[in-house]
């Protein structure tokens, strides 16, 4: 076996890199909200960085291990405890059958990841283990983890090479203002010059309407040229759509594949984890960067992951 869920926490789901190849049929990609933490968790336990892991939100689950395995907990600090003792984060740890992993509450950030060496025995649906709650698709029967669930390990390990090196410094997330870098487009021409200027000049506040689908921001309305409606078109991860009321919504992992509101810009890939770790009430500000810079930063991030993988798992 693997783990038994004693308590599911607020929202704990199985997520991997995402479900690709089905957006043309209206299927959301899903996937880990904070891909950076998710990738690191997998690499620390010797997995391919895209292997399915658990994503937890604010209050983590309580899990009883029924089999030994090496795990790593990354992302927001939800205060992980193993049998009541502090469990170090960003580090590969051997957990024994019979031990209990629990979380005492969010101290920094809000989304955590637990990767299990060898992966979880979760069937792939359309090529992915990711859970899409809205459509009851993938993961554990298309839903969040609940008390009584059991998930088996696929290929658990009790030892890995370079165990002492399997740790990296923890990420720390801003508690006040979150600054997100944005590339303009695809529909920046649907906004007035004043609208675009104010979009970058004035900050906003993250509202409670913030889930895996999107993050709605309260701020002075961003001015459209027209009414903000466009012919429905494709939506990329991090797109900032501005409905007729002028209040932006950042489109996240469970976003619909298409939509009919004008999109002023797109949050750059390397900044998406910052949204995933932010909370309602935090201030949010956008700054414009070039596409070239955004792509260079993304490629650098991928190279860093590749280096970590080679260092630990080659």
């Amino acid at each position: 076996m693997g783990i038994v869920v004693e308590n599911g926490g607020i929202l704990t789901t199985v997520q991997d890199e995402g479900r690709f190849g089905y957006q043309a049929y209206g299927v959301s990609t899903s996937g880990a909200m904070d891909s950076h933490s998710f990738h690191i968790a997998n690499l620390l336990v010797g997995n391919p960085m895209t292997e399915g892991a658990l994503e937890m939100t604010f209050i983590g689950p309580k899990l009883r291990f029924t089999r030994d395995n090496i795990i790593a907990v990354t992302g927001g600090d939800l205060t992980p405890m193993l049998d009541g003792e502090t469990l170090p984060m960003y580090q590969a740890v051997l957990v024994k059958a019979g031990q209990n992993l629990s979380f005492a509450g969010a101290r920094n950030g809000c989304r955590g990841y637990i990767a299990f060496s060898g992966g979880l025995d979760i069937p792939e649906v359309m090529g992915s283990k990711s859970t899409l709650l809205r459509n009851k698709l993938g993961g554990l029967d298309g839903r969040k983890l609940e008390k009584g669930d059991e998930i088996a390990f696929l290929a658990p390990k009790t030892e890995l090479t370079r165990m002492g090196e399997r740790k990296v410094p923890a990420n720390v997330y801003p508690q006040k203002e979150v600054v997100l870098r944005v590339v303009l487009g695809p529909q920046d021409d649907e906004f007035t010059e004043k609208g675009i200027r104010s979009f970058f000049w004035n900050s906003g506040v993250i509202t409670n309407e913030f889930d895996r689908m999107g993050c709605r921001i309260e701020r002075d309305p961003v001015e459209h040229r027209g009414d903000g409606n466009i012919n429905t078109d494709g939506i990329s991860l991090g797109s900032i759509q501005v409905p007729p009321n002028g209040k932006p919504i950042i489109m996240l992992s469970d976003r619909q594949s298409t939509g009919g509101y004008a999109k002023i810009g797109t949050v750059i890939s390397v900044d998406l984890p910052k949204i995933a770790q932010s909370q309602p009430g935090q201030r949010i500000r956008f700054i414009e960067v070039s596409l070239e810079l955004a792509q260079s930063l993304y490629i650098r991030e991928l190279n860093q992951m590749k280096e970590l993988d080679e260092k630990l798992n080659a």
Partner: protein
Amino acid sequence: MDVKFLIAGDRAVSVEFGKEICLEINEKVRMLEEELKDNPIDGVIEVVPTYCALIVHYHPEVVRYDDLVEALKVSLGSMSSLETKKKIVKEVPIFYGGETGPDLEYCAQLEQISVEELIRRHSEHEYYVYMLGFAPGHPYMARFEEPFSFKRREEPRVKIPARSVVVQQNLSDLIPFEQPCGWNIIGSTPLDICNYDKEEPFLLNAGEWVKHVPITKAEYDQIRRDVEKGTYQVKTYSLEKTAGERRG
């Protein structure tokens, strides 16, 4: 061809063929989609066709933006109108009215025609699947003759059942899963619009045509049983396009 490349972040670009929702522009979207299927560009993850644009999701570590746009221009130059003479039609049986089509009579009243005439208009002309979106397998369909004049309901419903057939003006959708909806429901189909358990989960593809076929409640129940057993075959055939439909 007036084509625009719109930057959709560091991992996607939208290729826009125009601003008008019409067959001519949508067929260009579909032609580029087909071209990229036949001659893929390295680094492209997937493409999503919509009314007027094809969004291309890609790996910038494999192909940077400028190189991708150059490659897409080559694709645009070599894409052919291979499919433009035939149209693929799928028959979708519908039980109109009854408990699962509660707005049928109301729609006929709004249109000031008989229920029979409303069913004729809905089932005689083929509907074109412009795109899929909103929910898995959910088609955005339109017909090009005899549009209804009524629009959405004033009060949207909080929940309507899966497999409902909903209409407004020249549009008709098939609802894959229970959802809120502001359109009028005129019937129900026994077919699954999306079923994750099947090897081919989706009933329809963008660019196909749908012919609604009126059936009785008894036929509906029989087809539903066959669908659940996995023995039902969706009737599919190809037709020559009319002159108007060939313009693209």
